[in-house]
């Protein structure tokens, strides 16, 4: 469908814009804002894998730049907990050692903050995936 494809192209453009803003934020040593920006507007309700991969790359970049995980949670908006958990599982699925290490570090703290319900929601979600 032409309309859906247009949306996808628009989404990819938006993700590219986001990526530039995130690079800037990371240069200014604001990794938490960068992560929040990356999680904002995640393409969960499309089936297009390119969009999802593009957004994952952006989220991954921001996530790997985080050093202080506890500090991150004091400023991350709780509405992003569910989507962050979904990306953590995507990260763990890659099998890449540094990615998995970082994901596990964040996962431990996120579970404390958001509870087991957050994990359940990311596991049970078959439709709005990342």
């Amino acid at each position, binding site marked *: 469908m032409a309309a859906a494809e247009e949306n996808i192209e628009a989404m990819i453009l938006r993700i590219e814009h986001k990526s530039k803003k995130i690079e800037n934020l990371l240069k200014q040593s604001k990794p938490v804002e960068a992560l929040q920006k990356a999680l904002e507007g995640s393409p969960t309700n499309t089936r297009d894998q390119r969009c999802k991969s593009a957004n994952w790359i952006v989220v991954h970049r921001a996530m790997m730049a985080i050093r202080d995980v506890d500090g991150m949670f004091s400023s991350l908006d709780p509405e992003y907990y569910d989507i962050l958990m979904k990306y953590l599982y995507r990260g763990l699925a890659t099998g890449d050692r540094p990615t998995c290490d970082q994901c596990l570090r964040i996962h431990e703290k996120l579970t404390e903050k958001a*509870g087991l319900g957050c994990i359940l929601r990311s596991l049970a979600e078959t439709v709005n995936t990342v």
Partner: protein
Amino acid sequence: MSAVEVHQFAQCITCHAWSPDRTMIALCPNNSEVHIYKFATDKWDRAHVLYKHDQIVSGIDWGLTSNKIVTASHDRNSYVWNQEGSEWMPTLVILRLNRAALCVQWSPKENKFAVGSGAKIVCICYYEPENNWWVSKLIRKRHDSSVTGVAWHPDNILLATTSTDGKCRVFSTFIKGVDTKDSGTSSSRDLKFGEQIVQLDLSSSWSFGVKWSPSGNILAYAGHNSTIYFVEDVCNSPFQQNVAYRNLPLRDVLFVSERMVIGAGFDCTPMVFTKDETGLWSFVKILEGKKTAQPNLKYGSQFSEAFGKLYGQSKNDGVDPLKSRGGAHENTITCIAPLRKEGDTIVRRFSTSGLDGKVVIWELDEKTEIPQ
């Protein structure tokens, strides 16, 4: 708010139901029998054992006005039990299912009952006096997977169902000769039997435990994704609210009043949800599980103990998930039933039964304000 009584009846309980005067409890100890226990002075006596089913009894409901028990089992059958003297006499109801029956509930007037099954069918059974038997009418359409829960609207016609396809549906079960057309309710167009009124596609995971509020205005059901869904004014203009909570999923819910819901499930303790003045539903707290000697304990200590358990839990989960958490139940709660006294509009006492074989009775003491 606390657990006032804890009773161990079996190794594992599938479901339970209370007698109209609340002195007897019918439960299934995870086999094909139904045990009825009667409370005598200070202990429970096993008064009757109903042997008829061949497989696990998955649902029991006890009619509060008719004193009839209906049971549904994985053996694809349902029996209606009538008490004659000291014996319970079964009447087989031929459901025409080719898969297990999973849940059963009497309608508010107790002239019909609904059975949800793994055959993606809901059976509505009514009594035909001419032939002295129960006839089942099937709702075959619409469900894509097992029907896990059924709930009757107070008007005795609308039925809500939840299914493992993630959707909650409302059907009309109007039967000519059994139900009378009430000019005040929905238009005649909707009154055809088996007509789907609305399909709620809010959860992408299995849904369980659907219940209507006492007025029939609000529908609540639990999703397996640790979310509880509240839908208001279902038939005309559905207004939904999802409440995502931090605990493990719920299996069953109960409306204590119009604005307060108790949910129970895999986290082994009941959770309270209330609707505030602005109409927003939210999670309030977990009910304290420890049995207290005096029911009127100070609020402060109960709250902080419960929260301490909540936050301390996640660290210990990885160490020993099977260790008892100190609550009343040690395993998943699968069934929650009200213990409503005659004339009460709100529920102050309710019971929960679970896979640990315990039935725990909870009481919301007078100090607790229940929003209505």
